[in-house]
């Protein structure tokens, strides 16, 4: 079996589990884990947005919660203040987040490394405090809650709405799945390879004729879009938006999820996010200092598995594939990433 085949199998198992989770999970654990699982998938998109920038373009952003927040407020304000329906509100959230990323990115990607990290924090803080103090629009400290508009209504007696928990679950996995599929396509395209060259060596990238600034900006906007979709989904999930989700702690958590999951691997963020949210759910009420454990895990991963759990998975798969290969007597190995 080749490495690619093993990866496809792993992906299929993961996809089947996700599809069947509303029935499977209650058989093993409490039913509320279905909700937690869909929440994990939403948050994993925020980690994926960090990963797209850090893992593929080499830009470490501590401000992705800003775009998450824009997606979230776009939906909440759209429904609660502007009286928009489901889809226009969803669109408003995503467009706001993407536009914000275009503006912030145009300035931020002129910088790299710590300067870039700092300016992303500054941007998110500015809008965090704006959201906190602009009470009439955002609800300030209290946040902004809304009642769920229907996705689709036919006649007077039939409508599709996220108030149905099954509809909500499948809507979430459909959107999250589409985002990962989109990233998968982009990362296999010439643009995705241009991302990696900028990560590896920006000078050489420009010397072969690549516009490094434009490539970084494109990645920044794409990452803002992904974070915006996550925020919009999260608003629908909680029927609520709050400035606290825009704070840079949230951005920092996403960085940790991405690094533990494996920066530079497409699905690493799902693994990192799931693992740490499970830890939080299981440990936080038993032991209030559970973040110490998270810190230890981060340190261990950074030292012993710099490519994160995703990197560990790929190394294992390669080893298994090679062993199988040798048994079968030769054949070419598969390339990475």
């Amino acid at each position: 079996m080749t490495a690619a085949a093993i990866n496809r199998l792993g992906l299929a198992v993961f996809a089947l589990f996700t599809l069947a989770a509303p029935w499977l999970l209650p058989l093993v654990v409490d039913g509320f884990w279905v909700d937690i699982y869909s929440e994990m998938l939403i948050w994993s998109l925020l980690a994926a947005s960090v990963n797209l920038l850090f893992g593929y373009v080499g830009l470490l952003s501590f401000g992705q919660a800003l775009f998450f927040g824009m997606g979230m407020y776009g939906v909440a304000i759209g429904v609660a203040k502007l009286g928009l329906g489901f889809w226009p509100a969803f669109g408003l959230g995503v467009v706001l987040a993407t536009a914000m990323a275009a503006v912030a990115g145009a300035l931020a990607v002129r910088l790299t490394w710590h300067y870039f990290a700092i300016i992303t924090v500054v941007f998110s803080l500015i809008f965090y405090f704006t959201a906190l103090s602009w009470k009439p629009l955002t609800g300030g400290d209290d946040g902004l809650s809304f009642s769920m508009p229907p996705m689709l209504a036919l006649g007077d007696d039939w409508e599709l709405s996220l108030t149905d928990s099954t509809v909500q679950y499948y809507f979430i996995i459909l959107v999250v799945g589409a985002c990962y599929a989109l990233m998968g396509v982009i990362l296999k395209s010439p643009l995705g390879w241009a991302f990696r060259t900028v990560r590896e060596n920006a000078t050489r990238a420009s010397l072969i004729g690549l516009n490094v600034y434009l490539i970084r900006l494109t990645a920044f906007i794409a990452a803002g879009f992904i974070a915006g979709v996550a925020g919009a989904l999260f608003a629908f999930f909680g029927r609520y938006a709050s400035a606290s989700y825009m704070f840079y702690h949230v951005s920092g958590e996403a960085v940790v999820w991405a690094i533990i999951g494996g920066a530079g691997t497409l699905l690493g963020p799902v693994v990192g996010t799931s693992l740490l949210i499970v830890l939080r759910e299981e440990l936080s009420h038993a032991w209030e200092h559970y973040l110490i454990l998270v810190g230890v895990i981060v340190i261990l991963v950074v030292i012993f598995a710099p490519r994160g759990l995703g990197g560990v998975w790929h190394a294992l798969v390669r080893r298994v594939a090679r062993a199988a290969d040798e048994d079968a007597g030769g054949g070419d190995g598969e390339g990475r990433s």
Partner: protein
Amino acid sequence: MSGPILEIADVEKHFGGLAALGGVNATVESGRLTAIIGPNGAGKTTLFNVVTGILAPSAGTIRFLGRDITRSSVHEISRLGLARTLQIKSVFHGLTVRENLWIAAQSREGVFKPFANAKTCRRANEQADALLEELALTRLASQQAANLSYGDVALLEIGIALATEPKLLLLDEPICGMGPAETERTVEKIRELSKRIDIVIIEHDIEVVFDISDDIIVMALGRVLARGTPAEISENAEVRSAYLGDDDA
């Protein structure tokens, strides 16, 4: 193209009070292999940096293929057909040898194609494979560039430059740090390439320079001290005393 492929006129570059280039005038003729020599600090690499847009000149103009590129950015200059290698070998370490060549070839086709699959970009694929063959790197195709020997990295860097289909190739000390066998292989490659691409080479190895070049530009203290054929340069008394260190001249 009848005129010179590269014209450098009165180019200055100051770092604070220091004039790294103090008014350089030089031309590179098409069809001839030009070497730039000079002691350390003469401004050779700074000149390459200014020509390729990595540094903006403080004064002067640079024309490539008759076009003013003085204020053009690095990637624009590359797209006009000017490629270069760096003194400290510069490749994409985390990518495989083939991926290194592939992305350089694809840069000519455009990379803002987010929905095309890299595997189906035929021209870049063919070009990457052809270059692997030409540079005898096929056996290393799926190796990460970080794992290559020094000589193979240098070769790969030349390959990356070639993948961009340059009209003019600037090589900055291509054989520096190589053993005799690798040096010979690389010099042969440069000689062969110079038949189809115009090349400017910065090199310290005087024997190699006199062996392969048609024109030599001698630089010292940020200026051009002399230029001419190898025969003329070796006869030039000023160069002999200033650079070649010939005391009994």
